């Protein structure tokens, strides 16, 4: 959603045309955005510890790690897939990074090796999905299981402290008060924004995910495009694993277990469709920030674990209903006049 709507000015049409098309920010973005504002206001009112520079820094670091995997997840969703393997790639790359660093390999080399390993796993995911035609959920669940298993096997279930001094550099503070990896995350988000909006392979993701048959008939390399999405996702997951172990100064095979579900949730909150072809960086960032804010705020308010669950559930439900309730009103006013088609496409897509 975040993307398809009007954006590039292009050759301007009539004023009317501009109005109908541009003055229509995606309802999901509107919904997610207002929820985000709402959460921030609610927490700011409830505790004076929320709106502080320190806390903003904490939220930023939390959001960055989750953000890396969510961006990847969103890209896979765009391409019409699912990436469950994240929960395997994160721990595997975390323990690999630590183990290799401890073995004395130079940090840069380790970094490259682990990222490549991630890309490789993603490529395997992609090939299984496209060539063997395995359902992406099952395929990535399989690789998740394998990777998680290997993560435990590599360290025999232990958490291994990171001994090499420089290897944790990604978690070093920058002059901006946030760790290096937050800047890395921002850079990656920006790059992906450009990729999805203004490059041929980026746009291909939308086509392949949103209309696989059309893409195939148009002679696009659908398999390649889809595989690239899985590769991007797994590489980002590997980076998240590296960041986690830099932050924790240790590689734990148990990290990242809940990241798959969280990343799907954040991506969908941010407007990505589970059926492919819809999604974008800005929405996803909103989704991540909502989840990050919610967690942070509830923790600050010392809501008990049980009620945190309850609260999270309700907020999720309200969030998404809000985004959806916006629709009818908007539609009535601003929709163009499709003549002989049946109106209810949006309902179609979301209510399934």
């Amino acid at each position: 959603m975040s993307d398809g709507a009007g954006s590039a000015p292009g050759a301007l049409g009539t004023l009317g045309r501009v109005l109908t098309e541009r003055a229509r920010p995606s309802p999901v973005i509107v919904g997610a955005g207002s929820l985000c504002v709402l959460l921030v206001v609610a927490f700011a009112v409830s505790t004076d510890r929320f709106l502080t520079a320190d806390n903003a820094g904490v939220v930023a670091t939390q959001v960055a790690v989750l953000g890396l995997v969510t961006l990847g997840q969103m890209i896979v969703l765009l391409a019409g897939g699912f990436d469950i393997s994240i929960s395997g790639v994160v721990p595997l790359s975390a323990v690999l990074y630590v183990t290799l660093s401890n073995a004395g390999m130079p940090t840069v080399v380790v970094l490259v090796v682990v990222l490549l390993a991630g890309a490789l796993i993603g490529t395997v995911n992609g090939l299984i999905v496209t060539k063997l035609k395995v359902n992406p959920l099952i395929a990535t669940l399989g690789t998740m299981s394998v990777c998680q298993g290997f993560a435990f096997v590599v360290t025999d279930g232990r958490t291994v402290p990171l001994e090499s001094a420089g290897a944790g550099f990604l978690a070093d503070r920058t002059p901006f008060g946030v760790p290096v990896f937050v800047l890395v995350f921002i850079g990656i988000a920006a790059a992906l924004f450009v990729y999805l909006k203004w490059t041929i392979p980026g746009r291909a993701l939308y086509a392949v995910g949103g209309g696989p048959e059309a893409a195939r008939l148009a002679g696009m390399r659908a398999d390649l495009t889809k595989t690239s999405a899985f590769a991007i996702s797994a590489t980002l997951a590997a980076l998240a694993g590296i960041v986690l172990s830099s932050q924790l100064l240790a590689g734990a095979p148990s990290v990242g277990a809940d990241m798959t579900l969280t990343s799907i949730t954040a991506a969908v909150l941010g407007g990505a469709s589970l059926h492919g072809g819809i999604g974008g960086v800005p929405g996803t960032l909103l989704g991540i920030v909502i989840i990050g804010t919610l967690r942070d705020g509830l923790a600050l308010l010392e809501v008990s674990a049980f009620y945190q669950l309850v609260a999270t559930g309700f907020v999720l439900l309200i969030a998404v209903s809000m985004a959806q309730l916006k629709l009818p009103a908007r539609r009535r006013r601003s929709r163009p006049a499709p003549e002989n088609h049946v109106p209810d496409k949006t309902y179609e897509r979301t209510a399934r």
Partner: protein
Amino acid sequence: MTADHQPDIALAGVCRTYGSTRALIDVDLPLHRGRIAALLGENGAGKSTAAKILCGLETPDAGQVLIDGRPVTIAGPRGAHALGIYLIPQELAFVPDLTVAENITLGWAPHRRGFTSRRSMVAAAQDQADRFGFDLSMRQKMKDLALADVQMVEILKALRVGARAIVLDEPTSSLTEDESARLFAAVRRLAAEGTSVTFVSHRLDEVLDGSDQVHVFRDGRIVETVETAGTTRDALLESMLGKPFRVSARPHRADADRPSGLGIGGWRSDVPLLEDTTVDFRAGEVTVLYGLRGSGSDLLVEGLAGARPFRHGSMSVDGRAVTRPRRPGQARRAGIAHVPPDRRRQGLMMNLSVEENLVLHIRGRTSGRVWRSPRGESRLARDAIAAYRVRVASPRQLVSELSGGNQQKVLLAGRLGQQPRVLVLQEPTRGVDIGARDEIHRILRDYALQGATAVVSTSDFEEALQLADRMLVFRHGRVVGDLRGDAMTTALDLAKGSST
């Protein structure tokens, strides 16, 4: 003259079998540069299969595809494109959440070192549309388009300047006369530049006016190949059906003083525009709503079906006031059945069998509310298949495996099976062959004659004339004509506003 020079592309001895269905049997199809070939044949005769084989979407079981006399293997659409062969498939395939511009430029978007922009895509797509004289709003999302616009986008995708061959599978099935005229002008230009053009159509006029050569399919074989100039409508029909064909005589039109079957009062809508409309649709007759796209006729039809609810106005069925339907379910309970224009997305369940699609909405009739009666259902389905001459390998075949026209018949049969008081139809014979179309028209008229009310909207004026007892002409959201009898022939001009 065709035999003189070697065909550019040809199917030679091609066979293709699906399970027990022999879709193509030993087909030879030579295509020449610079010429326009039409493929004609009944539903399920094998036209689409031949088209798909030409474009690498299907592989023949036996026989070859020849290019310049040499056998080639076409590796999917990508391989076809590499050879300069482009196809518009019969069933539209597009990316609903992307814009028109992106759909048109799908696979060939302009770029500089991999970077592209919306602006350049719009420009390229606009160029393409201008070149072929189509008017589309480039920045609209594809999913918001009307079916005919979607079809035009599909056409623009395939019309490539400098292509070796272009294959159009029923490109005009939901276009109006004007629109198809523009298409054929464009096609003609491409052919003149040396492209070989092949199209499939069930509209004989198009075939006669638009092609150089006609290949007639029957039961998987090409039974005749003739120069268009040297044949006639009747001759083509005969070779297509294997027997002489006459359009069934139009029974005498219904009288004007029949009772009201469906009444609407004060229906109006602002966006899209429909001015205050009050109409009495008479029971026992077929009323055709005719208008160009955007004129309000489809809007009204969808309103009647509850698919696009109106917010103002009253309604009655068989003289009894009913609530204006806000949902399709309400319309249905009021006795209204709706045949939507897009059979694959809006009409049929593509994951289910032919039988199940036929009985889905009427199975209660053969059983209670809970338990289905498999025996009764099979009987219903078999009867419907026979009555509508649906070409199936078995009732248990997935409906997605049928040819397009046969799918349409399944849809119609299912809806008529509901025995509704009011039938609301959009493009009822889209993609249906000429023989079957005539039959469907007869069935619809007979159904109406038994006292039901039929409201039809169609983009095909010929169909409108054949079906209508009465015609309502729409322009700019207003009813501009309420015609009966011979006056109906003026509807086209009324709709266009070209004469008053």
